[in-house]
């Protein structure tokens, strides 16, 4: 019970800190696409895969006192930082042990920029399509971000890297 909440706390605990709501959204989505057991439902919004369930879950976890959300004013925008509180760490004692590869996956994701993860997650959203169509879709839904060919290549390489290191995650 409450395992779905616990998985999100565990995710942020393994990341130590996640900076940015968008980044958190994309990190969880990518981990889910790597078949780690996250159940939050994602839909494509104007700016890529987004989960209202995850937004609400994180809000709940903050209200419960298991996560802390801090806000930094970056001038033109506000950035939110998420950490696990002491109570959150105690709550995690009731959680199932995560797959050993999850921490590695999260480490790789957290080292990337929000823009890059936005590209990776959107490519993964269209991963049922051939590569050229995936790229074409990204250009349509993210026309204003003008992703370069180098970024596309780097994103595909990163997806492959993740798939290799997380090839047999347990449920």
């Amino acid at each position, binding site marked *: 019970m409450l395992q779905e909440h616990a998985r999100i706390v565990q995710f942020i605990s393994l990341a130590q800190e996640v900076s940015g*709501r968008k980044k958190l959204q994309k990190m969880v989505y990518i981990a889910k696409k790597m078949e780690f057991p996250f159940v939050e439902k994602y839909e494509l919004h*104007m700016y890529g895969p987004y989960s209202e369930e995850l937004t609400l879950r994180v809000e709940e976890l903050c*209200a419960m006192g298991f996560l802390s959300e801090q806000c930094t004013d970056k001038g033109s925008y506000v950035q939110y930082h998420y950490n696990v509180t002491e109570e959150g760490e105690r709550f995690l004692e009731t959680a199932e042990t995560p797959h050993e590869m999850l921490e590695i996956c999260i480490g790789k994701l957290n080292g990337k920029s929000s823009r890059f993860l936005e590209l990776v997650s959107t490519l993964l959203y269209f991963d049922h399509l051939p590569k050229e169509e995936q790229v074409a879709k990204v250009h349509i839904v993210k026309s204003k971000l003008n992703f370069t060919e180098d970024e596309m290549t780097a994103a595909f390489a990163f997806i492959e890297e993740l798939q290799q290191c997380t090839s047999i995650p347990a449920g």
Partner: protein
Amino acid sequence: MEYKHEKLFEEKVFKDPVHRYIHVRDQVIWDVIGTREFQRLRRIRQLGTTYLVFHGAEHSRFQHSLGVYEIVRRIIDDGFSGREEWNDEERLVTLCAALLHDLGHGPFSHAFEKVFSLDHEHFTQQILIGDTEVNTVLRKVSPDFPQKVADVIGKTYPDKLVVSLISSQIDADRMDYLQRDAYYTGVSYGHFDMERILRVMRPAEEQVVIKFSGMHAVEDYIMSRYQMYWQVYFHPVSRSAEVILMKILHRARQLHNNGYQFTYDPVPFRSFFNQTFQMEDYISLDESILLAYFQWWRKEKDAILADLCDRFINRRLFQYAEFDPANEYRKIGQLEQMFRDAGLDPEYYLVADSSSDLPYDFYRPGEENERVPIYLQMPGGELRELSRSSDIVDAISGKRRTDHKIYFPEDLLLKKKDEIPLYADMLKMLKE
């Protein structure tokens, strides 16, 4: 005349309690409505288990889909047509997307999707581009037309204005379901002045915007969403019914996977239990089939499945207690153990449910670019996000309000609490 321009000899109208009449002149629209995949939506309720609380809420996705089509038709024909920002070539694809946006919903949509890890949007896409009657009709317009409709619904269509009519924070989908759900549930909230909103909607480069003078009508719409969420969509008794429904499906799958011999063989479910389903399996399933099986399974040998089905069919729902996870998460572990000791499987008889499990969305003013907010078009032409001008919207948008409940079979515990002291202890703990 090209099929895409063909009009019916006489306009057809559907009588509708929300919009009074739904008008159809396009042959394509008429033909799509007649397909088996669209007719199937008559057998999928719009509000799932809500009819067990609000008895009027028996309306279907068929009605809602026609309603969304009618709103979009009015926006285009009465509001956008002839305006510079609107391309009339997009009319038919927009109408078809409006009509077909919910085509892939399964029986008791949310619960069924959760249990079997499905996504109705995926099925909508598959039905549109697969070997179906709907696809046959759409392909008569042009070979790429089914994909265009799928792209609008999938939000990958190049013209974002078209997408925003079907899917945005003030779209035809929400405008129809709020009014329709209010009408059929009989609640007094949920109503807003749609006529006014339609008059103040303006096409802009990438989305629909609202003329500033229409702000108060939009405030009313946002308030309706807020109230309908807490009063109808997240009604605790309706959630109780959904909890039981999900547990029935879980139990049936578990029994099937364990080799249990059903008296009433779950033929239509097998491919879902095995995760081998094809689109046809999905299209063939509807709520009448689920309810028939629930009736039959009341007589199954498996006591848990029989009990859960009897509870659903005869509305013997679980009771709920408020639950504060921040301070009581350890209590859950204790309760689970007590349930096990008392011979009740907590997997089926003790269920925690959170507001994040059913995310009917609130208005959010576009934090970190995740969701496109509602923009007001100010008298000078510039755009301003709604909550910056409206104190009412600012007061309720994106605000945290969470709700956690724990569901359990109180009737069972009460019945046996005198003979089984543990039942009395469990009741006391749940009610504390």
